[in-house]
C-alpha cells in the first residue's frame, strides 16, 4: 500500500470525528485488553516467560545469519524451495514468477502482514491473477478495498452492522432477504463463500509466525483454520516471511507461542497452531505438491546492524497497540501505513525513512503502557525517542519551533537568566490570569487552548518566594 504518513495529524482528527470508528474502537478495553489481563493473571510465571521470550529473540538475532542458513538447509532437505528477496520488489517478482510457472489463476491467502508491506495483492492482480483473502477480517477489508487497521484484528475498525451491509452488497448471488446480523451468521456465510475458493485455488500464500531452523518448518497460528486450508488444499504453497521470523528450535518456539497468544487475544493457545514442513510426501493424504519459502529482508539487515535492533524482537501480538491511548483514540488507519501503534511508530521510520514518517514517533505521550505489556520487552519508548533525535538532528520543521526551542535551551542552561525571565513572565501571567485563574485564549499554546483552558500561574515563582521566606519575609 502507498504510505501516507505525512498527513497523520489530519487523518487522526478525521478518525476522532468518525462516530462509527469510535464505536468500534470503544470495544478494545473490554475486549482484547481485558482478555489479556485475565490470561496473564491466570499464569503466575508470565513475567518470567517474558524474560525468557526476550532472551530467545535476542540470542537468535545475535546469530541470525547462522540460524537462517540452518533453516534454509533443513527446509531444502525437507523438499521446500527457499528464495531470498532483498527488497519488496524482488519478493513480489519471485512470488509472481512461481505463480506464472504454475499457470495459476486463483490465489488464496492466509493473513500475512509482510504481504501487506510488500504490496503483494495489487502486484499479483496487475499480472492478471485473482486473489482472495481467507482470514475473515482480511476478507472483509479486501472487499472494501481497505488495508488492515490492526496487525492481528485487521477489521477491528468495523462494526457488525458494517459487515452485514458489506456482505449484502458483495454476495449478490444469495437471497437479499436472508437473515444476517449476528457474528455467527456472518461467519457462516463467509465460510460457505470461501469454501469453494479453497477448493479451486491453484496457489495458497501464507505468512509465518515462526520459521524453525531445526525442522525446516513454518508455524502459523490462527483461530479460523483458514490458514490450514490455504496451505494444504492448493497444489502450491508459498510461505512469505521476513528474515527475523526464524527461531532455532521447536522448544523455543513453544515459549514464544505461550506469550504470543496470551498477549494477543488472551488465549492460552490459538485454536489452531499449524506446522508446515515441505510438500506432500508419498504417503501423505493431502498437502501441496510444491512448497516455496520466500525470505524477505526489506530493511531488516540494516535494522539488525543499527540501534533499532531490539524492534526485531517483535512477534506481532498487537498488545502494544491495544494498550496505547493514541491507538485507542484514532485506530490504525491514521498511522498511514501497514504497521500502526507503538511498534509501527518504531518500525515504519526504519522501513520508510524518518523524513516522511516523523509524526509517528512524535505522536506518543510516552506513557509506557506498550512497553509494560510487550511480551518480548521491546523498549518502545526509548526507540521512539531515538527516532525523535534523528528527526531533531534534521532540524525542526518550522522557524517558530526552532527559535522557541533555542530560546528555551539558552534560558534553561543559564540559571540566573532563567530566574529573571521566569519572575517576569510569571508576574505578567499571574496578573492577567488572576481574575479567572485560567486562560481561555492566548496568542501561544493554540493547540492546548483549542480543547482546554490553561491554568494561570500563581504570580510569583517558588524560588523567589523561598528566598524571601529564608530571609524571614512572610508569604
Amino acid at each position, binding site marked *: 500500500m502507498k504510505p501516507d504518513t505525512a498527513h497523520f495529524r489530519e487523518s487522526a482528527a478525521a478518525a*476522532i470525528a468518525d462516530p462509527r470508528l469510535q464505536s468500534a474502537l470503544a470495544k478494545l478495553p473490554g475486549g482484547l485488553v481485558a482478555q489479556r489481563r485475565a490470561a496473564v493473571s491466570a499464569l503466575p510465571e508470565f513475567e518470567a516467560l517474558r524474560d525468557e521470550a526476550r532472551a530467545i529473540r535476542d540470542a537468535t538475532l545475535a546469530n541470525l545469519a547462522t540460524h537462517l542458513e540452518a533453516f534454509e538447509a533443513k527446509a531444502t532437505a525437507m523438499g521446500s524451495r527457499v528464495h531470498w528477496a532483498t527488497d519488496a520488489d524482488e519478493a513480489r517478482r519471485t512470488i509472481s514468477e512461481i505463480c506464472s510457472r504454475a499457470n495459476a489463476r486463483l490465489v488464496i491467502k492466509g493473513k500475512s502482514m509482510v504481504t501487506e508491506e510488500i504490496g503483494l495483492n495489487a502486484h499479483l492482480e496487475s499480472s492478471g491473477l485473482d486473489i482472495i483473502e481467507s482470514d475473515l477480517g482480511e476478507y472483509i477489508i479486501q472487499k472494501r478495498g481497505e488495508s488492515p487497521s490492526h496487525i492481528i484484528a485487521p477489521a477491528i475498525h468495523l462494526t457488525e452492522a458494517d459487515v452485514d451491509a458489506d456482505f449484502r452488497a458483495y454476495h449478490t448471488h444469495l437471497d437479499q432477504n436472508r437473515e444476517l446480523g449476528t457474528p455467527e451468521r456472518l461467519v457462516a456465510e463467509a465460510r460457505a463463500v470461501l469454501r469453494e475458493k479453497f477448493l479451486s485455488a491453484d496457489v495458497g500464500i501464507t505468512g509465518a509466525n515462526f520459521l524453525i531452523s531445526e525442522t525446516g518448518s513454518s508455524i502459523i497460528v490462527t483461530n479460523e483454520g483458514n490458514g490450514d486450508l490455504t496451505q494444504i488444499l492448493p497444489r502450491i504453497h508459498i510461505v512469505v516471511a521476513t528474515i527475523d521470523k526464524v527461531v532455532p528450535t521447536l522448544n523455543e518456539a513453544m515459549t514464544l507461542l505461550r506469550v504470543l497468544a496470551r498477549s494477543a487475544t488472551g488465549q492460552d493457545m490459538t485454536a489452531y497452531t499449524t506446522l508446515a514442513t515441505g510438500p506432500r510426501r508419498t504417503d501423505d493424504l493431502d498437502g501441496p505438491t510444491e512448497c516455496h519459502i520466500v525470505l524477505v529482508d526489506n530493511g531488516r539487515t540494516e535494522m539488525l546492524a543499527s540501534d533499532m535492533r531490539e524492534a526485531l524482537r517483535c512477534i506481532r501480538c498487537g498488545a502494544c497497540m491495544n494498550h496505547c491511548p493514541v491507538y485507542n483514540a484514532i485506530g490504525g488507519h491514521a498511522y498511514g501505513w501497514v504497521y500502526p501503534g507503538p511498534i509501527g511508530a518504531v518500525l515504519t521510520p526504519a522501513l520508510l525513512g524518518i523524513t516522511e514518517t516523523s509524526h509517528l514517533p512524535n505522536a506518543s*505521550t510516552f506513557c509506557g503502557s506498550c512497553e509494560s505489556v510487550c511480551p518480548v520487552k521491546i523498549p518502545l519508548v526509548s526507540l521512539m525517542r531515538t527516532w525523535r533525535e534523528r528527526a531533531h538532528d534534521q532540524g525542526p520543521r518550522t522557524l517558530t519551533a526552532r527559535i522557541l526551542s533555542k530560546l*528555551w535551551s539558552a*534560558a*534553561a542552561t543559564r540559571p540566573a537568566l532563567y530566574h529573571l525571565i521566569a519572575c517576569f513572565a510569571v508576574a505578567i501571567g499571574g496578573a492577567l490570569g*488572576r481574575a479567572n485563574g485560567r486562560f481561555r485564549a492566548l496568542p501561544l499554546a493554540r493547540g492546548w487552548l483549542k480543547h482546554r483552558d490553561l491554568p494561570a500561574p500563581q504570580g510569583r515563582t517558588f524560588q523567589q518566594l523561598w528566598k524571601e521566606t529564608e530571609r524571614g519575609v512572610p508569604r
Partner: protein
Amino acid sequence: MPAPRAGLFVTCLVDLMRPSIGFAAARLIEAAGCTVVVPDRQTCCGQPAYNSGDRATAKSLALQTIRAFADCEYVVAPSGSCAAMLKVHYPCLVSGEPDLEAEADAFAAKVHELCTFLTDIRPIASVPGRYDGRVTYHDACSGLRELGIKSAPRRLLAAVEGLELTEMPESEACCGFGGLFAEKYADISNAIVTRKTDNAATAEASLLLAGDLGCLMNMAGKLTRTGHPLACRHIAEVLAGELTDPPIGHSAVSTP
C-alpha cells in the same frame, strides 16, 4: 545526629505555575525530619529537550542539575515524571563516559519522588494535612511505570484524617498530557483527556489528585473548560494541608 539535608528539586512547572506545591513539599520533607534546601542553580530537569530529541541540551541540564545538588544527601521532587528523568534517564544521557556515569549513578541513587520518599526512605510518623471529603487519584504514567509508584500515595492518603479515597476506573490510563504532545497533537490529546476526566468524574469525588503538575494542568484545564465541578490539586497540597490557594485553574475571586 544533625538532620539530613534534602534538596528540593521543585520542578520548573511548580516553580513557575504553582509555588504552593513547592511549599507543601518542603513542609512534608521537614515533617520527615530533614532540613530542606533549594539550590538556586536548578531550572528544568531537561525532559522537554530529551523527549524532543535534543539530547545535547538535555545532557547539559542533567549535569547542571547533578552539580546543583552536590551537597545534598537526598534529592526530592514533587513529580514522578521529573524524578524519573533524574533517576532513570540522567545515567542514560552520560552512558559511555565513565567519570560522568559514576557521577550520574551516585546522583540517581539519592533521588526520590516525594510520596515514596515519605513512605519508604524517611517514613513520616503522621501526615499533617486533614481533608473532609472524597478524593480520587490519577496514577501518572512516568511515576507508575518507571518508578513503580502505586501504593505510596495511597498509603499516605489513607493517613489523612477525614479523607476518603475512591478509585476511578482506569486510574492507570494516561491523561493525554505527554509534555509537548498536548500542544502538537491537540486533537488526540483531547480524546485521551476526555476519557480520563469522564472516568475521574464517575468517582464522585470533590478532588482529583495526582503527583504530577503537568497531568493536573491538563485534566484541570479540561474540567474547567467543560464546566465540571471536579477540582484538581497536587497530592502534596492535601498531605501538607496547604489548601488556602484555590484549586488548579480556579481563582480566589470566582471559586467558592
